[in-house]
């Protein structure tokens, strides 16, 4: 393995560079990470607004939505579709994979930048282009894509079925561009991790977040191919007039579902693993003790990643696929609970005999764990083929995947953002607004989504614009109203974050290099790290990542970086 010492010195500091070089054509991994973060947050506003219009329609069907207008069934389908697309592909992935990955991989492995800085910039700008194309699809004639975020053909394959022409085509193109962006990004991440680790940073000493980011990148690279193939075929169906997915022309609608979910299930872990990794970085720091079972977690991650490729058909138990396939996929699906249970148990065990400080990053990380346990357990209902017969396609599914995805994106994501904000921006994030943000999010998230389990069990199916049309659902309409009102609280809570985020940029207390007394490499660089991260000499690593409260040590933490232990101060 070659080390970063041989990195050609093509990336000279360019403090004097103009606006264009500094912000637009930036190749510095930290700037690109901030660009990903801002793009993700911006798209989160878009996705959040869509969810607001959607939930309003569900609570008070066919009334004017304040600030949006009238939502009919057609618009509702577009809302459902694009809310899912935006949140998964343009919020979760940019923030958790794009931003965390870009910021932390070089810093945590002691490199000066990513392996291919210009390719890195290209990845981001491709993603920005994809986001722009997706946003453009909202305003083209015919309206936005409305075939669900899964885009099942034949509904998505012919414009007559939805009445949407360019909206859906642009939606597909936006995906293609987004996939290209993260494909190049993933190649970059993996190459950086494999070839550019600091001297002494063996794979057994990598911070767990790096393991999670690497696994997530591998999962993405290996799963997205079949979906790109499917997307090309679907685009051909729409534009050229082929019939890959149209039965009347000899096609197979089910083929799309297989190709989609072959990607779709690993994709869930692409989002989840970085959030898990961020939380795993936070626990030892705020419990002041090593993570419990480093090797076990690494193996759990690898096993879960491998299993994620052979579970996809659990999304298709009632899709009309061969019913004999269901039990094998049900068994593998339920099996995947074992590595994740192991991860959860080790996270809980990491708290045992700790000295737990409930500071903001820790609060978010603990909430991530609690929400993830809930979402994981409800997943068993859906992974079991017979109970999925009833629950498939109901709001139980909606509640389940919001508990898993929101636990990852919001709770895991904010654990990371609160934890690394000082390193990223050189200032501390305000704690008062932060506390308000955390507690309101925790409360309103549960109030919004927990009741959806019940209404799902009661028989409310997904993607309907007007629950009052159903005799089984109408008596429970109060749940829809309750959930919508809670969502307004959840959104208001996020407004507090945005306020805090921007206020702290200018008014926050200047951050020391290592405000949390953490051991991993990134905290030995200045806050924010300069271009090139490490000054003249690259860091060398002399021990594992979580050496807290080592018996006999002078202080309760021993940094990974060789020679940094003697410094041992907060500065």
């Amino acid at each position, binding site marked *: 393995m070659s080390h970063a010492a041989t990195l050609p010195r093509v990336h000279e500091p360019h403090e004097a560079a103009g606006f264009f070089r500094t912000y637009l054509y930036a190749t510095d991994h930290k700037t690109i990470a901030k660009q990903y973060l801002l793009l993700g947050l911006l798209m989160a506003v878009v996705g959040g607004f869509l969810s607001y219009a959607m939930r309003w329609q569900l609570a008070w069907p066919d009334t004017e939505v304040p600030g949006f207008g009238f939502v009919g069934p057609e618009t509702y389908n577009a809302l459902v579709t694009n809310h899912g697309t935006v949140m998964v592909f343009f919020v979760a992935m940019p923030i958790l994979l794009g931003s965390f990955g870009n910021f932390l991989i070089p810093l945590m492995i002691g490199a000066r930048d990513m392996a291919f800085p210009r390719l890195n910039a290209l990845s981001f700008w491709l993603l920005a282009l994809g986001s722009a194309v997706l946003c453009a699809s909202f305003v083209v004639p015919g309206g936005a894509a409305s075939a669900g975020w899964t885009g099942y053909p034949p509904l998505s394959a012919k414009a007559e079925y939805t009445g949407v022409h360019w909206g859906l085509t642009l939606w597909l193109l936006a995906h293609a561009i987004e996939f290209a962006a993260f494909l190049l990004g993933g190649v970059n991440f993996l190459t950086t991790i494999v070839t550019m680790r600091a001297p002494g940073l063996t794979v057994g000493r990598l911070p767990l977040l790096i393991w999670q980011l690497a696994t997530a990148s591998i999962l993405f690279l290996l799963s997205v191919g*079949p979906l790109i193939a499917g997307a090309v075929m679907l685009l051909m169906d729409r534009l050229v007039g082929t019939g890959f997915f149209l039965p009347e022309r000899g096609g*197979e609608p*089910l*083929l799309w579902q*297989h190709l989609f979910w072959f990607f779709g299930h690993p994709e869930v872990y692409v989002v989840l693993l970085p959030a898990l990794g961020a939380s795993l970085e936070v626990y030892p720091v705020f419990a002041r003790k090593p993570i419990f079972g480093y090797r076990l977690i690494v193996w759990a991650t690898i096993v879960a990643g491998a299993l994620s*490729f*052979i579970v996809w058909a659990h999304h298709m138990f009632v899709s009309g*696929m061969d019913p*004999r*396939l269901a039990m094998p996929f049900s068994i593998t699906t339920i099996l995947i609970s074992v590595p994740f249970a192991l991860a959860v148990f080790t996270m809980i065990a990491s708290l045992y005999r700790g000295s737990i400080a409930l500071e903001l990053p820790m609060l978010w990380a603990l909430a991530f764990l609690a929400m993830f346990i809930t979402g994981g357990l409800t997943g068993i209902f859906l992974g079991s083929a017979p109970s999925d017969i009833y629950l498939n396609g109901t709001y139980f599914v909606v509640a389940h995947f919001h508990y898993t995805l929101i636990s990852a994106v919001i709770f895991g994501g904010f654990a990371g953002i609160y934890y690394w904000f000082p390193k990223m921006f050189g200032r501390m994030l305000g704690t008062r607004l932060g506390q308000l943000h955390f507690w309101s999010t925790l409360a309103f998230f549960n109030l919004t989504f927990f009741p959806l389990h019940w209404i799902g069990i009661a028989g409310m199916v997904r993607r309907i614009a007007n629950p009052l049309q159903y005799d089984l659902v109408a008596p429970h309409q109060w749940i829809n109203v309750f959930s919508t009102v809670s969502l307004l609280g959840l959104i208001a809570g996020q407004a507090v974050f945005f306020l805090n985020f921007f206020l702290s940029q200018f008014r926050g207390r200047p951050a020391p290099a290592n405000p949390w007394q953490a051991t991993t490499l990134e905290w030995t660089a200045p806050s924010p790290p300069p271009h090139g991260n490490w000054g003249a000499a690259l860091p060398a690593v002399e021990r594992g990542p979580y050496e807290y409260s080592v018996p006999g040590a002078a202080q309760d933490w021993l940094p990974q970086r060789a020679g940094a232990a003697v410094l041992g101060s907060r500065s």
Partner: protein
Amino acid sequence: MNGTVLTRGYVVIWGWLLVLMTLSLFANTLPVSRPAIVTLMFVVAAVKAVLVALHFMHLRVERWLIYAIAIVPVLLVFGLMLALFPDFVFAR
């Protein structure tokens, strides 16, 4: 060729590739059953692919990581294809 020394190993592999290509071209005229011919063609294709991968792409001398990167997706593709059989082949 301008005094260039051709790399002998590469020329040999090229020769084999051309031989195998010719074999698959004339496979259809062999006096054996159709499934046997098709099997032969794909075995030949696989051998050609392995020759290119091992020698031209230097997998022969690569370390285990590169090997794994090359092999795992191939296995996944086979897994995907097998899982699709019940729905699209046996369903007919």
